[in-house]
């Protein structure tokens, strides 16, 4: 378990790094991974439903056991934070942010 200082630092790092690819894989297997998505501050079941379509190339061994929470902090800049387990990963991906926003629109 992290020390107090380490707890703070863990906000910007990840025990298991989540790449854009793994995020998309996670989104694609929302049913198994229990994907939860927040965008613009609101969870949207429609996006989760959309994301259940396929799971190409997913490695079950690397699938998070708990929920994966995606927070689109700023859709215009593509600033995305992905929360899983006790880790957080910041991504900057305008395309992904746009897809998420379109999905909830």
């Amino acid at each position, binding site marked *: 378990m992290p020390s107090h*200082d380490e707890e703070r630092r863990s906000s910007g790092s990840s025990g298991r790094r989540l790449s854009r690819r793994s995020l998309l894989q996670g989104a694609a297997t929302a049913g198994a991974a229990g994907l939860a998505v927040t965008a613009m501050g609101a969870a949207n079941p429609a996006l989760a439903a959309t994301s259940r379509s396929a799971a190409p190339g997913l490695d079950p061994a690397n699938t998070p056991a708990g929920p994966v929470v995606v927070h689109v902090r700023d859709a215009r800049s593509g600033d995305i934070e992905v929360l899983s387990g006790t880790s957080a990963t910041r991504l900057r991906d305008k395309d992904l942010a746009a897809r998420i926003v379109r999905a909830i629109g």
Partner: protein
Amino acid sequence: MSSHREAPEISKDPVADSTDLYAFVSPDKSNTVTIIANYIPLQLPSGGPNFYEFGDDVLYAIHIDNNGDGRADISYHFRFHTTVRDGETFLYNTGPITALGDTTWNRFQTYDLSVTSGGSSTVLGTGLPCPPCNIGPLSTPGYAGLAAQAVSSVGGVTVFAGQRAEAFYVDLGSIFDLANLRPLANAHAFGSLTAGPGVNATNNFNVNSIAIQVPISAVTISGHPVIGVWTTASRQKARIFDRDTGDFVSAGPWEQVSRLGNPLVNEVLIGMGDKDRWNALPPHDDKEFLNYVTHPGLAGLLNVLYPGAFPNLAAAVTAGTARADLEAIFLTGIPAGVVNKTYTTFTGTVLADMLRLNTSVPPAGSPSILGILGGDVAGFPNGRRPADDVVTIELQALAGATLPLVDPTYKVDGVVKSVTDFKPDPPAIGSPPTGSFPYLGTPYSGYNEPS
């Protein structure tokens, strides 16, 4: 209150709301230090059927800085786990609970304890038992003995986590009614009420305590007998309600939502707009809050609320005097030579709100609840014991009682010794602190309180 409901956000999250922190050389075991962190404020003892429990989704911690940098060198972490034996009944217990393993206790908690030091973490114990809440004489007969079963010894640490009686005493009603201290009520600017002895607003309430007792040698380093202590509660960054189960699920790193070192710092000194952020930051960032400590708003108000009673304090406030005495008490510790040649709680120049304890000072034979103001060097602000009257000590300090420590020319206003929320004596406490671990009194039972 000491730190009960002290900031807007945490007041909505009582399970993670730290209320009081105590640290003292154990009076009955003077080679050890005891640290007690209380959570879940103002528990009405009869508040069932879902009685009070720690949050399974909260990371509770007690931190110790032993080299004066305001950073944790040793952290004890507590994670709780709740088990329900029979989900078909609404009852907390289905019969008397006489032992912690009784199956009549339907909803119970255990916890895991780990310690982080030197970059590595060690699990000290898993599945450690909590006692039940004190329900009443039929449900929890012989409660004191039942709670004693929940004292564990693991990895050189004696530990307890569970409900205890509130030890903190304060006249909340008067303090938050424009500091209308009852003993001085006849002198208040906004009314001429009759002076009175004070009302202990926290009497007959319970709290949930996390208490550890560790050898002094395990938490200090050579040549540095003063430790800085604080407690934190953290939640994972995201929390989502799952309608299918009716539960919340969490994800992400632990984020600190509550912090407590010295009593009343966030509650009374920090401004409303910064309280929530203060709770989220580590002590070593406290430099940015320095102005709140050195120019406390309450000091400026006293002479307004009690016109003419604090002329010297008012002059110091008007002159913009930076309260170096308060800076020392709360943020650096008091260097040797200020109170006397040997008294010190100084940890260094890093500004950090920590409850500082000089572990080389033995327990007092005849403790004074006024701590250093009462000539007792083993009491607050050298650590804090459960009976210490921290409200009076801090009110008098804010009113100027400690200013001569850094400015010998300052003359303390004559009224300062009368500044207290209780007079002539502190209030009787229904279940007072005890002389042995975990030191806080047996919690009030739901059957008897309120009565």
